[in-house]
């Protein structure tokens, strides 16, 4: 057994033996092998682990849990890295309380590339989703890696945006182990992520998505990135935890502002008030990370709908990212309902707009 194997062993003893314990043990024993070979008496003398933990450590030397984990790792193509390993992401190594080990599918973020974490509400509305997808796409085009959490809402849209770019890399940090896709309905993105980035978690295989794990994975999301982009964070949102972790870790904090009366943006606006970088276009993000860009990325702003006729253009001109009720379109265009419906459905099929429910329409970016 080499260091790598011992690291897997120690990471799989028990949930209660965590990062802090392992690093303290390493201070005493120098290497994993010495910990493995340490006698019960010497472990008691170090006074790091309690009686129960020592018993578990001694019992685990039968390698039952280790073998089980190795089996799953081999079967599911799960990779492993630990703090002392050369593959361990450099950015993460320097945060406070870095995870001792990382399990991952696919690959780990490239240390030499910039990366951005895109975070926000699960029940985000259309505007947030579109912005998340759009910005993730644009920054992925600049070779920046997009990191998020595979959750509903902003997270999954960020992954989608990055995946839509050929060669775009995106990584998901999970609150469960990497062999579990949570939430289940994002399975398509989960599979794509393995080939275009990776799935990362510090939890050993077969760990279910339990609530206490999620704040912990948030520190990995921000730790792996150079900057954190917050889209739609409400009051007391989990994204604010990530944002404060990012500040502790010295990451750039970028926030898309929202209407000050909109409760979906209370958290976001609070962050801006506290001094976060305000983002209104993708250039702001690139500026913040110190990335050079051509000045001509700007005119993407107004999309040109070449294949639309003049009435269709008139209708789409009425729409924006906020839900626009059908009555408003009817009133403004003075066209009969069936005709409007025909135009709207056709544009929806083309992917220009979306029916977001209750007869409200909004454009897609």
């Amino acid at each position: 057994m080499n260091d790598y194997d011992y690291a897997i062993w120690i990471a799989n003893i028990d949930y209660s033996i965590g990062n802090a314990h392992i690093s303290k043990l390493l201070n005493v024993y120098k290497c994993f092998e010495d910990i493995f070979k340490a006698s019960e008496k010497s472990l008691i003398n170090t006074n790091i682990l309690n009686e129960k933990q020592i018993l578990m450590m001694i019992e685990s030397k039968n390698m039952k849990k280790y073998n089980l984990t190795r089996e799953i790792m081999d079967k599911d193509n799960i990779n492993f890295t630990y703090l002392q390993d050369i593959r361990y992401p450099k950015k993460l190594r320097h945060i406070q309380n870095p995870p001792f080990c990382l399990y991952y599918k696919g690959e780990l973020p490239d240390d030499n590339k910039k990366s951005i974490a895109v975070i926000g509400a699960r029940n985000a509305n259309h505007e947030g989703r579109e912005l998340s997808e759009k910005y993730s796409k644009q920054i992925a085009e600049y070779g920046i890696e997009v990191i998020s959490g595979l959750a509903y809402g902003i997270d999954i849209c960020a992954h989608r945006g990055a995946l839509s770019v050929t060669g775009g890399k995106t990584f998901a940090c999970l609150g469960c182990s990497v062999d579990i896709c949570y939430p289940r309905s994002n399975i398509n993105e989960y599979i794509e992520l393995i080939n275009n980035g990776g799935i990362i978690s510090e939890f050993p295989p077969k760990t279910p998505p339990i609530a206490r794990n999620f704040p912990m994975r948030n520190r990995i999301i921000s730790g792996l990135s150079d900057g954190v982009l917050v889209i739609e964070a409400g009051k007391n949102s989990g994204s604010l935890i990530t944002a404060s972790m990012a500040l502790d870790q010295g990451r750039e904090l970028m926030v898309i502002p929202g209407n000050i009366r909109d409760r979906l943006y209370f958290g976001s606006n609070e962050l801006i008030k506290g001094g976060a970088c305000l983002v209104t276009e993708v250039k702001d993000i690139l500026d913040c990370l110190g990335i050079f860009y051509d000045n001509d990325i700007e005119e993407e702003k107004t999309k040109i709908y070449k294949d639309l006729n003049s009435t269709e253009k008139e209708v789409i001109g009425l729409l924006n990212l906020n839900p626009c009720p059908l009555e408003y379109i009817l009133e403004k265009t003075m066209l009969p309902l069936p005709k409007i419906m025909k135009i709207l459905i056709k544009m929806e099929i083309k992917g220009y707009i979306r029916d977001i429910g209750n007869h409200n329409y909004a454009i897609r970016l």
Partner: protein
Amino acid sequence: MYHETNSIAIDGINGHVVKTEADVSDGLPGFSLVGYLSSELREARERVWIAVKNSGFRFPPKKITINLAPANLRKEGTSYDLTKVVAVLTALEVLDNTFVPDMVFEGEVSLDGSIRRIKGILPMAYTAANKGFKYIILPKENVKEALIVENIKVIGVTHINDLFDILKDPEAYVETEKISFTDYTKSNDNIDFIDVKGQIRSKRAIEIGVSGMHNVLMIGPPGSGKTMLAKRIPGIMPLPEFDDIMEISKLYSVSALLSEDKPLIDKRPFRSPHHSITQTALAGGGLYPKPGEISLANKGVLFLDELPEFNRRTIEVLRQPMEEGLVNISRVGFNTVYPANFMLVAAMNPCPCGYYPDYKKCNCSVVSVKKYLSRVSRPILDRIDISTETDILKYSDINTSDNEDYYSTNNMRERVCEVHNIQKERYKNEDYSFNCELSPGSIKKYCKLNKYASDLIKEIFDSEFISARGYHKVLKVARTIADTMGKEIIEEEHITEAISYRGIDKKYNGGVV
């Protein structure tokens, strides 16, 4: 001494003639009933005995046996009391029996000899008339219900003692008041689609739904008028014809839902069971089967408000009746068939609080919205062709002065009737009569598209905007929309409108949630 009388047994909503045979002979004095009887019929022994005694007649010390034939048919209910009384009394030669073979007797007797109201008179009278009987003798309170049936003379009785005179000269007691069927159908409704302000899209969806008899699902926030719309749907269906009225009324008659002053159901029914309803109450059943809500909604509307709140297994029982238009209730030894040809109208909120996807009002988490939507049974959603969203009303909608005549109940019904006629004409050689019943095979035959429309539907299908099942739904609905515009070939516009009525699965942020 032996004599027999006739009465009618109800099976489903049809009747059979049951003969009541009475025999009076020497032997150990007694009074016995035979012939596959339910418990309330066995108890009739006491009722008949005492009622006859209390009417001033004394039974001789003889052995009296009453048999209800055919003996293999299960009989239940209290309607055979009167026929037993007559059978015994004619066998004892107390009553005149000249006219008895031409008569049908129905009624429950009470201990003092008076005759009580029973249920199911309408199908009984109907069967009696069909079987060629001349008179039907029944409780006075049920007279109006029977008067609707033609070709039979109705005689009401209030007490056993009346029978002595009636049987001597029945013609003198025949109810002369004739109620014609048209008297009842003129009653005017005070609910009209005109009362519903705004909601033009939903009104249009409903009109199309009724035109092709597609089942409709309404999704919308609380207070947006889903129930109000649903209640008005039976009104825009074509006025029920005589056969429809008879069928509906028979079902209500066997369920004891007809009253003395309203002996006929002349409107298409609107049934709105609460979501705590059981499978039996919905589909019909019981030890002695009774029609369920789906049968009471026959020829009308079954409205399921708060669809996700219904027990999933309860809703699943709708599957077979929705396919076949009837419900078959099997019991040991017999089964009963009730018609259940209804249009399903369901309503639901998009999320537990009802305001999704408006996050300014909706506080529901993503997971709870998903859970709520997935509570609706998939097989039932597959049978619903049209989904429409209801809007929250604005002040300008409520306070609008122009009475939109286009969506008044009368105008809508006229248009619906036209479309029904088109379909009747088109499907005259088929065993179905509405667009909603088109199978994938017949869709090819009857849903002809023009070039633009077929290009469009191909584009829609390729863009994964609709599923394969959704594709057939869209075509069926587009067929109806084309019919409402009097077009034989389906055009682009019809397809796009049909798509806007697609289900909830691909809506709400593209199904992303």
